């Protein structure tokens, strides 16, 4: 043992080892140069499967860039991982789909590499509010897809679809609801404000927020499950164990089309519209490929495919799309949506989180 530890390491040995090590490190980049590739982060599960099946192969065929899709967690977990990795100069994914709250947080730390508008000619197809910009006007992210969170019900338990978010407050629904557990992904404050306080402007002041929380506290006896894990609610909704709640319109539609007794309803106050952006990590070295990818995704034809195959709502202007009225209605609604107050989750996130947690757990 001793001899091995004390074996003399000659100068030549060190050089040899160094050379071997260096060439091993260099090898992957040699391989990469032959085949262009891009690591793209999309929400794991249904989203990733749909993209892998319906979108990425066509992109590779059109551009020759191979896509390695990475399953990312929802919420801000992925943002934290990207941020920590970027500090170390690594990018677990080059381009990621980020929700608005995460997008804005990343913008505040300059996590996203600014995108070059000249390399993204198709971005002019987008509805304006789906382009995220830095204060200096540089593009931080480009709308990938948007989706709705709506009022969902089990059709066997509720023969009639509810028409208003006010159903959540109905005393007849005691212990029957499943709602998202966090202030920053349930957007229930906005729902409360729109339903009972005349609009989300009511949340401008702290007093308004506290009033909305007070009103929202009235739903607590109706809530059976405050969920973080989507699968848990989806399964309970399908079985009728928890027959009402808020959930994603696209996934609910998919479940219904596969025969589950569930329905998604746009309440008269509107569904909650959230959206995901394509954003490029500043640690990524694949800027060219990333621009090609994002530009490709902004084409109306691709957005229409996304609506048809994935069930997401398009981020490009309605008149550029060849979606039929029925196809459009299945992924979106003409009822004016409830747009989350993303600004609040930036400026007052700790206040909101504290009051929210005290409200539901207190």
């Amino acid at each position, binding site marked *: 043992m001793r001899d091995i530890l004390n074996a003399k390491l000659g100068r030549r040995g060190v050089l040899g080892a160094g050379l071997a090590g260096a060439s091993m490190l260099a090898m992957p980049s040699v391989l990469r140069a032959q085949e262009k590739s891009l690591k793209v982060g999309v929400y794991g599960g249904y989203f990733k499967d749909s993209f892998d099946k319906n979108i990425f192969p066509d992109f590779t065929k059109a551009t020759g860039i191979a896509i390695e899709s990475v399953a990312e967690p929802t*919420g*801000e*977990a992925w*943002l*934290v991982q990207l*941020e920590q990795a970027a500090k170390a100069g690594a990018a677990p994914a080059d381009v990621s789909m980020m929700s608005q709250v995460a997008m*804005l*947080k990343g913008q*505040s*730390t300059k996590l996203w590499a600014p995108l070059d508008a000249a390399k993204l000619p198709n971005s002019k197809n987008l509805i304006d509010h789906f382009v995220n910009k830095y204060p200096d006007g540089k593009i931080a992210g480009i709308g990938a897809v948007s989706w709705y969170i709506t009022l969902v019900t089990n059709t066997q338990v509720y023969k009639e679809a509810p028409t208003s978010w006010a159903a959540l407050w109905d005393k007849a629904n005691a*212990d029957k609801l499943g709602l998202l*557990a*966090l202030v*920053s*992904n349930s957007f229930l404050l906005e729902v409360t404000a729109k339903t009972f306080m005349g609009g989300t402007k009511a949340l401008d002041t702290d007093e308004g927020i506290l009033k909305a929380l007070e009103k929202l506290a009235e739903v607590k006896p109706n809530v*059976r*499950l*405050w969920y*973080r*894990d989507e699968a*848990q609610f989806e399964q*309970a909704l399908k*079985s*009728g*164990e928890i027959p009402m709640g808020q959930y994603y319109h696209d996934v609910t539609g998919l479940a219904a089309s596969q025969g589950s007794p569930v329905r998604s309803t746009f309440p008269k106050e509107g569904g909650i519209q959230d959206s995901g952006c394509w954003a490029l990590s500043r640690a990524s070295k694949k800027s060219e490929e990333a621009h090609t990818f994002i530009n490709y995704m902004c084409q109306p034809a691709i957005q229409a495919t996304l609506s048809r195959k994935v069930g997401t709502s398009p981020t490009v202007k309605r008149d550029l799309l060849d979606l039929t009225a029925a196809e459009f209605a299945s992924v979106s609604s003409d009822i004016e949506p409830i747009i989350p107050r993303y600004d609040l*989750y*930036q*400026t*007052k*996130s*700790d206040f909101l*989180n*504290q009051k929210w*947690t*005290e409200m*539901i*757990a*207190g």
Partner: protein
Amino acid sequence: MRREPPQRLADYGPLFFPAGMLTVFFVVPFATMIAVSFFQREQGGFYTAAFVFDNYARFLSLFFGKVLGFSLFLAVAVAVACVVIGIPFTYLLSRSPRKIQIVWLVALLSILSLSEVMIGFAWSTLFSRTAGITNLFVWLGLMVQPQALTPSFGAVMTAMTYQAFPYTVLVLYPALVRLDPTLTEAARTLGASPVKAFFTVVVPALRNTILATLIMVFIFALGSYLLPQLLGRPQHWTLSVLITDQAIYQSNMPFAAAMAVFLVLVSLALVGLALYAGQQRQAK
């Protein structure tokens, strides 16, 4: 063979590897966590290196006090439940034929291969209204209609006890197997009933093992965050759930770190207290 005390530095060699692992995988991360807990939270961003007490100040409130209190209570309750069920069970197991012992031990060990997620989902199905055990009770005529048993404190307790039970048995088993059977036989000859012999001979003889088991299950249960979430109402969420919320969903690392440090300190203090109390009793 006489064991010589280490003379030179090289004699301490065998210690370097474990010490190194402990440093890399425990001391460094824990130190990082303590450092981060003093950092300045940037709302809407991440954090900047600083030395502030804000994160601890935010934690010192009635609300978080209650959550901490509940977490400790839950962990103690699970530890006690495990030991109360575990001792008679393991005692009977250690007195049963070899073959039966093996079957039981293999079954218990296989529980360890289940992830917390699977255990959580399995119990939430078992406790559900639509597919749960109450349907069986209705069929047997014990209940009028099926009802949901989750979310509730009982559901959280049941699942956590179930999860920690194999560890309890594994710690108690060797001690109970090694326990001299003539002790209980002597007690029986002197006229004690089996139950009395169990409580006056077996339990006191195992005092240290029981204390060790309690502490182990307590620590194990304190870190649980998935089962309270899956099976409990928000008032049954433990501090670990809130730590996860802060770290993962609010990207508020400094506050999450401060809460975690607090939790570690409180649990260390409680363990220390338990060990001290045990020693005091032994000294008497």
